[in-house]
């Protein structure tokens, strides 16, 4: 709630009722930034004429022209590499990697180049780029359309990692990322592009149109990086999560009647440590939920930070509910996905005394 107040308020009457999905919100953010800043360039595989395999860039080439929004060869190394060069020139590129699972060929350019350029050149050159990429599972995407590789990036000094969980945040955070002078990885949870996902895969999915967080102001607004969002206030425990799992955790807590304080972290680096500390010191208990595999996942960092900084306030061990340490399976998706049963068990364990 404190973070919410820092966002620019929508202008009163024009937008209050308008609800859009996350794809539309991302499209609007790109459209607005292409309009506002001549140096913004959108590029990637299939993003130009076709408008992107998820429609996030639909209509942008027609509106802004082929030299501002264009298709690229199928080369993630090339896409990130030329974006670094464009940034050195003074542009503000927004490259898309079609799936986070396919970002690896661009890793050398991201880790060795984009992340370190400001540091190694002592600010002579910077890489003000935002790499957008759909990530996460829950869509029967199998091994290479479901991964959550955020901890690879949070481990790299010089990169920021941002993950929205609502259309409202997707637009405001993406605008902030594009304006930010540091390289940002912007992971879009594709499971919730069209509607929030409760984790109860056998129940019908609610579209964004029915969700309060789909009220997205028209026009320009920003949500600051490094600030968490309080999804629900509560006293029983703190849930630290992001992306799709925000909605899963919220649904499970509601279902079980747990008075949880759910923090949607929104930015993993830089992390809103103040919000985390404040909440955990209040509740004395902490559950961490992410889709990514467990070992050395971002949850390990969160768990360590909470333990280091809130140790004397903790009334139970910090629990993590995560993906298993296996490649993301196809047929066993709902056995793998850290859904309601596992989250429920963890809640019971944390709250038992």
């Amino acid at each position: 709630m404190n973070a919410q107040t820092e966002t620019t308020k929508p202008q009163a009457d024009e937008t209050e009722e308008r609800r859009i999905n996350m794809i539309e919100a991302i499209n609007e953010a790109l459209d607005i930034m292409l309009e506002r800043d001549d140096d913004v360039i959108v590029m990637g595989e299939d993003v130009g004429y076709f408008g992107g395999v998820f429609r996030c860039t639909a209509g942008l080439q027609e509106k802004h022209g082929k030299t501002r929004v264009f298709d690229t060869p199928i080369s993630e190394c090339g896409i990130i590499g030329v974006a670094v060069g464009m940034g050195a020139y003074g542009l503000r590129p927004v490259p898309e990697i079609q799936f986070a699972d396919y970002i690896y060929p661009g890793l050398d350019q991201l880790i060795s180049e984009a992340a370190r350029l400001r540091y190694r050149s002592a600010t002579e050159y910077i890489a003000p780029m935002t790499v957008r990429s759909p990530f996460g599972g829950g869509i029967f995407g199998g091994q290479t359309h479901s991964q959550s590789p955020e901890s690879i990036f949070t481990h790299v000094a010089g990169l920021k990692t941002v993950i929205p969980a609502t259309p409202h945040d997707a637009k405001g955070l993406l605008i902030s990322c594009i304006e930010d002078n540091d390289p940002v990885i912007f992971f879009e949870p594709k499971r919730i592009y069209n509607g929030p996902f409760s984790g109860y895969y056998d129940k019908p999915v609610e579209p964004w149109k029915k969700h309060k967080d789909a009220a997205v102001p028209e026009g320009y607004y920003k949500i600051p990086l490094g600030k968490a969002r309080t999804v629900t206030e509560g006293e029983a425990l703190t849930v630290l999560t992001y992306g799709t799992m925000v909605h899963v955790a919220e649904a499970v807590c509601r279902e079980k009647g747990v008075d949880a304080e759910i923090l949607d972290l929104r930015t993993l680096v830089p992390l809103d440590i103040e919000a985390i500390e404040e909440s955990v010191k209040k509740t004395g208990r902490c559950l961490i939920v992410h889709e990514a595999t467990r070992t050395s996942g971002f949850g390990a960092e969160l768990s360590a930070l909470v333990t280091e900084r809130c140790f004397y306030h903790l009334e139970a061990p910090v629990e993590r509910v995560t993906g298993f340490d296996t490649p993301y399976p196809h047929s066993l998706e709902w056995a793998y996905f850290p859904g309601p049963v596992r989250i429920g068990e963890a809640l019971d364990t944390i709250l038992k005394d």
Partner: protein
Amino acid sequence: MAEAADTNSKSGDNRPALALHVPEPRSRPGDPVNFNDVDIGEPGAQPRPDESAKPEDMKDLAYGLVRVLGDDDKAHGPWDPKLDPETLRTMLGHMAMVRAFDERMFRGQRQGKTSFYMKCTGEEATSVAASMALASDDMVFPSYRQQGILIARGYPLIEMINQIYSNKGDKLKGRQLPIMYSSREHSFFSISGNLATQTPQAVGWAMASAIKGDSRIAATWVGEGSTAEGDFHSACTFATVYNAPVILNVINNQWAISSFSGFAGSERTTFAARALGYGLAGLRVDGNDALACYAAQRWAANRARANQGPTLIEYFTYRAEGHSTSDDPSGYRSAQEREEWPLGDPVMRLKKHLIAIGEWDEDRQAAMDQRCAEEVKAVTKEAEKNGILGHGLHHPFHTMFEDVFEELPWHLEEQAAQATRERETKWPDKHPKDGAGK
């Protein structure tokens, strides 16, 4: 009628055994050297097509060798850039300075003043002459062996030495390994240790220049060994797809540390010929011929500037010294190679050319060499006042945490405070202000 493929027999059933080919250089330590198989063609023999020529119409230029300076030390043929004597003397002066600088810095490393150095001996023309054919605001994306560009562009020697010594005068704040220079003011991109990463970056910079309707072009330099990296393929593909105003310079100095160029694919084709598969213009040039290096780069620059597209230039040269101060080439190649190299020494060849046209003499050369050596020595002494590696005159501890991001996030603030406390505990009496933060 074609013989049907035998899909039924199993391996071992009467089929010839396969054999893996592992390339081997022509000579190893102790072996005599024979470069007779290296076809260097005749100076002046190569045609000079119009800068708007189609890549497929200039295939021979990707397999032959553009040469200007002959054994008679005269300039020959259509690639003679017809530079005035003053420009030639400036070029020679820069090349002599690069050589003097390399000598001094190599010695500095052996004396323990720095941790590392890399010479470019024998390759001076590929950076000095080539970069002189560009405008001073054309952006260059070099590898680590193009110090000649900085010297040709007038970058102060003291800045180079401060960087090599990682001292308190180092504008990169001691963060980078020696010779990984950066100078935005000289349109010289920050050098990275990761090979070939600069090649798609150069293409991206050139694309940006084209997007903005600018008139500046980009050029990148990469060793022949690094052309095997995926980034180089990406660079060539993006360059051709977007007709980017970029020049891709491949310095084929025959060696990638201990691996001869065969491990980058030179046994069956040239590096310039790779251009053809991408639809790039390809030129193969005598890299020890400063006039040919200049002419090729000027040709490619004109082509790029006229929106006629990118060019890949292979400079055929020889890495006369070890790979770096950490390398001993006597462990993998014949010591005679350098003497037998058929394209000689770039500095000597340009010097002899200037003498041959009556614009230079041995006395002036000797005086120039001495001036270069004295200047480098004087600047070295000046730089040493800022400290040498490991002697304490480094940047404050807090600078280690700056510029990771535009602003210092909380976790780096905390770590910076920790480093400062550690410094005070380890060295309570030294540099009391050092590391106290900003």
